[in-house]
């Protein structure tokens, strides 16, 4: 018996396809080779054809003088700056729209999502109209439409001129709404404003620690402090007190009409307002649906149990439903934030100078470096998307049920 040996199988080439032990590896190797060959061919073909047209791949134009002006600049930039800096100005403009857009879209979306579940028939139906309206019309049309409304139905700066002007500034003569944008008062940081900022930061920290203490106190003794009112007091009282003690270090600079336009103050362009508003409204409709689905995913028994404990509807939503719903809501939010960021590349429709407008628009046109500019743009959007996903995935982990 012991002399019987298992037959030693000799490896034959045919087994690569016939034998299930090797087949999947064979298929994967072949697929990989084909993939590499196709990529190689695409790159090689591009380089060869570019060489044929006498074009090379060269990024040195990024260090050359741009020569054009950009209206909205978050960092110093003149037409003597380089194309690289123009791209950076555009990148910051893109990030500004994306950041503010995401915040506004989230706030709006949560409200819309909750209100769509309201027992009030009119409110629920109005929210359905809102969601279906924004979701089912292309974003580009909303951007252009809001921009057109802002431009056509607001007065030109010229209308503010003269002894009996057609238009006047609002909010105690501090804010001007024109067809070129809105001008707000802007703060001037005088002497001592540094201390004020420090005090404000300390107040914020105090609020944070107070709330932690209040939570601990409630867990240990069941005593419930009026958290909201105390926080509000810490927020306002010390800062206001020191504002007057330090002799009003921060003053406001009001916009005023000079020549063709308003001078000074904070100038928010119509292109920015239109783009941010349209992106927020459009994305909020999607977020609203996600919030609604998240709430509906929590079983009705939770609400009933909470109300049998005597909790009011507002507290049930804040303490019981929303924290659980977040587990369902957060993952699909990532793709909506990413969509908002990517949709911001439609900015050129209203002349907002985002990175698509500077690097992918004017720079591309003036230098003729299409391939390089497009590669850089794609790299930029890819990086932003990956970073946003990473951040939200990090938060997402803290919302999930531990140990699952």
């Amino acid at each position, binding site marked *: 018996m012991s002399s019987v040996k298992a037959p030693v199988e000799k490896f034959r080439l045919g087994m690569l396809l016939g034998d299930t032990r090797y087949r999947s590896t064979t298929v994967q190797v072949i697929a990989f080779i084909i993939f590499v*060959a196709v990529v190689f061919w695409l790159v090689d073909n591009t380089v060869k054809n570019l060489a*044929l047209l006498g074009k090379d791949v060269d990024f040195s134009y990024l260090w050359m003088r741009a*020569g054009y002006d950009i209206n909205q600049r978050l960092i110093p930039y003149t037409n003597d700056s380089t194309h690289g800096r123009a791209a950076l100005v555009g990148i910051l403009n893109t990030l500004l729209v994306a950041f503010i857009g995401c915040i506004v879209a989230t706030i709006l979306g949560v409200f819309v999502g909750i209100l769509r579940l309201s027992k009030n028939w009119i409110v629920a139906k109005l929210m359905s109209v809102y969601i279906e309206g924004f979701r089912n019309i292309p974003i580009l049309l909303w951007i252009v439409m809001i921009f057109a409304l802002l431009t056509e139905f607001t007065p030109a700066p010229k209308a503010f001129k003269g002894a009996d002007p057609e238009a006047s500034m609002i909010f105690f003569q501090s804010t001007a709404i024109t067809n070129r944008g809105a001008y707000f008062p802007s703060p001037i940081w005088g002497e001592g404003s540094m201390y004020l900022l420090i005090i404000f930061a300390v107040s914020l920290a105090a609020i944070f620690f107070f709330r932690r203490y209040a939570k601990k106190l409630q867990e240990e003794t069941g005593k419930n402090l009026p958290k909201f009112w105390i926080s509000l007091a810490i927020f306002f009282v010390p800062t206001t007190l020191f504002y007057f003690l330090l002799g009003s270090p921060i003053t406001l600079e009001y916009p005023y009409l000079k020549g063709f336009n308003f001078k000074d103050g904070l100038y928010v362009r119509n292109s920015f307002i239109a783009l941010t508003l349209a992106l927020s409204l459009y994305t909020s409709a999607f977020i609203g649906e996600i919030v609604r689905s998240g709430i509906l995913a929590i079983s009705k028994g939770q609400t009933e149990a909470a109300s049998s404990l005597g909790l009011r509807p507002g507290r049930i939503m804040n303490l019981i439903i929303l924290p659980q719903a977040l587990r369902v809501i957060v993952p699909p939010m990532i793709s909506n934030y990413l969509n908002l960021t990517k949709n911001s590349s439609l900015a050129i429709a209203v*002349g907002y100078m985002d990175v698509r407008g500077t690097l992918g*628009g004017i720079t591309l046109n003036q230098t003729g470096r299409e391939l390089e500019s497009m590669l850089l743009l794609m790299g930029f959007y890819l990086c932003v998307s990956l970073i946003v996903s990473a951040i939200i995935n990090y938060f997402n982990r803290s919302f999930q049920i531990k140990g699952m």
Partner: protein
Amino acid sequence: MKKSLFLSVAAIVGFTAGVAAAGTLDDTIARGHVKCGVSTGSPGFSGVDDSGKNVGFDVDYCRALAAAIFNDPMAVKFTPLSSSVRFTALASGEVDILARNTTWTYSRDTDLKQTFLGVTYYDGQGFMAKTSLGVSSTLELDGATICIQVGTTTELNLADYFKANGMTYEPLPTSDNAESKQQYLAGACDAYTTDASALHGTRINMENPDDHIVLPEIVSKEPLGPLVRHGDDQWADVGRWVLNALVIAEEKGITSANIDSFADSKDAEIHRLLGTGDDDMMAMMGMPKDGMYNAIKHVGNYGEIFERNLGATSGINIERGVNNSWTNGGILYSPPFR
């Protein structure tokens, strides 16, 4: 398997690389029509008339080229191109010639690897403002908001001009002429800047042209002309000399109407140009002997093209100014046809 795959990849790459080798003129003749890139719409320069036919100053140049090659001014396929894709379309071979009010500049000639064939229209950048603004000079525009088309040379000139004069401005970028016009009319900008010829064309199409004024200053040189890719001198020669022939024809008084009366002219250059003499000049570029005759016969000389599209008969009413033959006080001057 691996080896044969790489061989076939190499073969495909080699094949694609070899496509663009033949001459553009030969390709065009074989194809039967000229591939011409024009603007998406600029009054007087390129547009579509009521019957759907392409018309305009730039369009007529391509028609003259087609008439010279095929004796048929309609043998052109027009591709409307926005200012941002025009050079890519030319470089990739989507069009073979670009007649799209494009300014001839150093970097476009050298860095973008284009060959400009000459100047069809000497233009300059101007400003338009509403009469009610009370501005009579560009130098009074300090602090103004100015509408401008992105990706054009006008954008760079604007920056240079305001800097040179110590003035500031706020640019309002727009994507094309139509959007600029709309923003300007809505009062979102105080002035609109682009090539003066386009300003005149835009102004005349407004509801009340008298409410708008084109300011007298011309802040840049904008020589507009047709261009082709680097690397095919024969094709560049054809385009260049069709343009020169149109200019010579006006200088000599040859029009589409009277061209046949020059058959027994005593001017030897006319016979060389029209192919009515013994010498076959056009063979030097591989073109039919009566090519220039056909171009002028079908499309007219430079002056006729200008008058039809931009002059008084067109309603746009642009003065000839420097865009006149040197014999009439202009600066159009063609090298001799010999």
